[in-house]
């Protein structure tokens, strides 16, 4: 029954593919058949690599020769909580070096939790003729010297020496050199990176001809930047839409800085504190009003109450407000927030208190995302009147609320159930009860039922973080109901392997699981080994997984990198049953990574880690077949309770069936 394929010429197919954007759809296209695979790979322009060790630069370049935009993520998420030791990895240099030669037309680089050096930044600055976007999110390893290199070369000017009389687009006609301007840097975003702040003068490296800046985020920089250079830079970039300054920029200079940027959509102020000066206040308010597109405000370091009302005139325009550095007291925060009727996103410190959240619930009916951060996470006693009631209030009052990150000190099952019932449209729910293993404060019971209600009612829940006192029961709920769950973070929870087993066997869409300080051990992990190949990564630290189990897993699963992180010394020096300190497992087609530090060991089989793809594929398919056969044997044995011989005979038949 031969079907005749609907024929479409290649160029036409390529044109069709140009209208398909999402990574998922592009991946689906490339798996359809040989010809589509070929066409798609040549016209893929945008690549997202969620784990930089899952694939090698060489493989990427070989398969996708015409990439223009790349996003790479390095360290596991728990690196944000200092659980990943220094020097673990996530180095961008091999990628940058490979792409510098292979993708001369690369336009965008976005890195998250990676280590990038000044040399790499220089290489970026010099290699890509059409470079436009650099986003370094939670990265480290570079200094302002690297930034200076980017700034200096951002115009990518070509120089032609000699005397040229008639040259198009002549900017400067010097004696023997003519600059020809090409496309320039649009976006430089250093969000939350750790930059070695050597000096603020790197900003002066932007040439005077550079006018194409659209987005600049330097909020993470510690030291002062040259304000005059910044002022000049902003003044000559008419297309500036997003500007996030660092804390060192004083409030009274803010007016001058943004005075000539009327197209700003997002503004992050510097320090929002100054002596009471009415003219500064009115200038500030004036400038805010003058930015007619302004929708998002952030910064507000050390915000003093006196200057907050400067925002009131534009409060109804605001859709996003980040007050997580505003250490003002509740009443002022509340007043501000209540004015912003169209707010969709609010990040705030717990100074807002329950009363503030009540006001939020009453005023901001369009709220989609709420994050409440702790002002004093290490204090033993609560310093503010923020409890679970605030969150319940918001869940009742804001029908569009779908993303929550909430730090608090007490929670109850009843509250969680109410929240779940109120907001079945919740997609991200991260609750952090500050003290580990805190029970329901009303009943002193575990919070299993509460979180169970969350996963049960919120059918589209994609991301969940648990906290409080939790038993295996909560994981049963998660495994049963969390069918759309993609990322789960667990700490100090569960009683036994059963918990982990529920999650790994029940959550069909799980991509990332990170666990710390839970009594999860070998059995659940080994029993669900195959599941790990369907996920991006699994992190387990301070759990009960033994070295022996890690070795076994590494041997049997060649398409996973099973990396043991142990700063106590080689795991070989301890008994096999000894639990490993930290375990990071991720699927990969690139084999073992070459940059593991001394405290990371990859568990591997006899064939070693550097298998060729073919060998890996064969082994994997054999292993898969093998594990399937094995588990069938086991289950049959258990079901039919045969004696061993009969069982083995039965198995042999099944094996032939499978072979």
């Amino acid at each position: 029954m031969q079907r005749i394929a609907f024929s479409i010429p290649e160029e036409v197919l390529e044109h069709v593919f140009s209208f398909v954007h999402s990574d998922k759809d592009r991946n689906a296209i490339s798996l359809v058949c040989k010809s589509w695979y070929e066409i798609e790979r040549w016209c893929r322009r945008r690549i997202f690599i969620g784990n930089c060790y899952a694939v090698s630069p060489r493989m990427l370049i070989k398969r996708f020769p015409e990439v223009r935009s790349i996003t790479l993520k390095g360290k596991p998420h728990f690196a944000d909580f200092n659980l990943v030791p220094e020097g673990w990895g996530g180095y961008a240099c091999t990628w940058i070096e490979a792409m510098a030669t292979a993708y001369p037309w690369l336009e965008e680089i976005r890195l998250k939790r990676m280590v990038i050096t000044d040399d790499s930044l220089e290489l970026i600055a010099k290699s890509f003729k059409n470079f436009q976007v650099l986003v370094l999110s939670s990265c480290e390893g570079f200094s302002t010297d690297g930034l200076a290199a980017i700034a200096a070369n951002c115009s990518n000017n070509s120089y032609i020496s000699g005397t040229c009389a008639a040259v198009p687009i002549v900017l400067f006609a010097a004696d023997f050199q003519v600059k020809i301007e090409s496309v320039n840097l649009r976006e430089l975003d250093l969000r939350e990176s750790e930059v070695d702040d050597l000096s603020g003068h790197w900003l002066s490296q932007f040439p005077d001809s550079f006018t194409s800046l659209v987005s600049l985020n330097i909020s993470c920089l510690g030291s002062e930047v040259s304000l005059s250079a910044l002022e000049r830079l902003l003044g000559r970039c008419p297309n500036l839409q997003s500007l996030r300054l660092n804390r060192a920029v004083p409030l009274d200079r803010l007016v001058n800085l943004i005075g000539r940027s009327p197209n700003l959509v997002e503004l992050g102020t510097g320090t929002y504190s100054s002596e009471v000066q009415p003219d500064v206040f009115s200038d500030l308010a004036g400038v805010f009003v003058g930015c007619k597109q302004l929708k998002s405000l952030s910064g507000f370091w050390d915000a003093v109450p006196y200057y907050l009302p400067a925002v009131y005139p534009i409060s109804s325009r605001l859709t996003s407000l980040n007050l997580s550095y505003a250490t003002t007291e509740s009443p002022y925060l509340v007043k501000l927030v209540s004015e912003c009727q169209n707010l969709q996103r609010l990040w705030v410190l717990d100074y807002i208190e329950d009363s503030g959240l009540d006001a939020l619930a009453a005023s901001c009916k369009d709220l989609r995302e709420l994050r409440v951060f702790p002002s004093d996470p290490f204090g033993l006693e609560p310093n503010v009147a923020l409890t679970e009631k605030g969150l319940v209030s918001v869940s009742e009052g804001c029908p569009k609320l779908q993303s929550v990150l909430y730090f608090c000190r007490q929670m109850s099952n009843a509250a969680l159930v109410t929240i779940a019932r109120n907001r079945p449209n919740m997609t991200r729910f991260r609750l952090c009860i500050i003290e580990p293993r805190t029970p329901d404060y009303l009943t002193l019971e575990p919070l299993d039922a509460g979180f169970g209600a969350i996963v049960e009612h919120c059918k589209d829940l994609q991301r969940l973080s648990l906290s409080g006192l939790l038993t295996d029961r909560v994981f049963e709920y998660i495994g049963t109901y969390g069918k759309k769950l993609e990322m789960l973070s667990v700490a100090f929870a569960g009683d036994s392997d059963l918990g982990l087993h529920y999650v790994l066997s029940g959550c069909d869409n799980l991509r990332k699981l990170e666990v710390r300080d839970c009594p999860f051990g070998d059995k659940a992990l080994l029993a669900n080994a195959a599941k790990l190949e369907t996920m991006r990564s699994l992190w387990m630290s301070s759990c009960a997984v033994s070295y022996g189990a890690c070795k076994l897993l590494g041997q049997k699963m060649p398409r996973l990198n099973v990396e043991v992180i142990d700063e106590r010394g080689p795991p070989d020096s301890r008994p096999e049953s000894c639990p490993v300190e930290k375990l990071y497992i991720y699927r990969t087609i690139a084999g073992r990574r070459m940059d593991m530090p001394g405290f990371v060991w990859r568990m591997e089989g006899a064939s070693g880690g550097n298998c060729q793809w073919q060998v890996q594929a064969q082994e994997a398919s054999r292993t898969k077949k093998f594990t399937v056969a094995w588990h069938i044997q086991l289950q049959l044995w258990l079901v039919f309770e045969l004696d061993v011989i009969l069982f083995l005979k039965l198995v042999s038949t099944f094996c032939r069936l499978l072979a």
Partner: protein
Amino acid sequence: MSEAAMAVVKPEMKSYIWVQTVDGSIQQVEEEVAMFCPMICREILQTGMGSSKNYAISLPQRVNPAIFGLILDYCRFHQVPGRSNKERKTFDEKFIRMDTKKLCELTSAADSLQLKPLVDLTSRALARIIEGKTPEEIRETFHLPDDLTEEEKLEPLRNITDDPRIRLLNRLYARKRKELKERQKLKNVEVEEERVDERSVDDLLSFINGVDGDTKGARTNKNKKKNRRRKDNSRDPSSINANENLNKGLSALPPVCHNGAVDNVLGASTSNHSRNLTAVNFSPKLEFVDGDVDDDLDPAMKEELDREVEDFARRLNSDWPERMQEILSLGQERRLIPISMNGNGSTVAIVIGVEVIVIRSL
């Protein structure tokens, strides 16, 4: 009337262009409509063709008469200058509704005629058809072959529940479970707590691999707290029996030797499994069953079971395939073998838990 005569007699004094499609047939097209196609336009201007029947412009091979008709409809509408954007958009949306095959032909034809607006329109429509589909679905839609090798499929493994062998196994279990449940309904059994199995994975494996030693330690599984929150779960949770050990609790097993026959066992679907079974508390300790005969068993039932076992044993082949050798030899090397219970696999394990329970309750 001959076409030449028709040309003379036309009252409106309109100009017509003659075109010839790939099948040889020649037709006239109003000039302004034809000129909307850049390719035709260029042919007219550069070569002067199209003015008469003998000098009809040959259209590209990809343009057959039916498709050309559609293209003409498109051109006829859009070449009228006075239309609003809204009108055009509405027309386009209606125009584009056709089956995928025709859409592909139309896209190719429009491309060969260099009619960019139509190419964009049809390409976008095709893109929307592709979006959201799995590769298999796309193959179905466009009648494409599945000719990629494992190597080329860099896509990571899908959820293992897709494995056909797991599905097969689950169907088996579903049927068995149904049978056993029916039997269970005839009986009234007491609930007793069972002891938990304490043995490690290693012990289990060595036991299976024929290393003696632990037979006396075999215990039955414990299943506590049958809290079912699911309304659709019809299973009776509380029937657990303590120290009985069923031997060879086989019901009529479908002939496992034949793939086809087994495939006919269409029990509950796999999704049924996940729903019904994850509600059960699964003991992390793997379940052990003693091989000894159970004294509490109804003798009649026991006899029946014995007979079934014999029957089944007879049906089994005594050949040892290589794989079995491999497994045994691995066992002798004392290498640990992983137990892989994946998505539905764990479901199966829980099935087993329930199966065991159900068996016990007999």
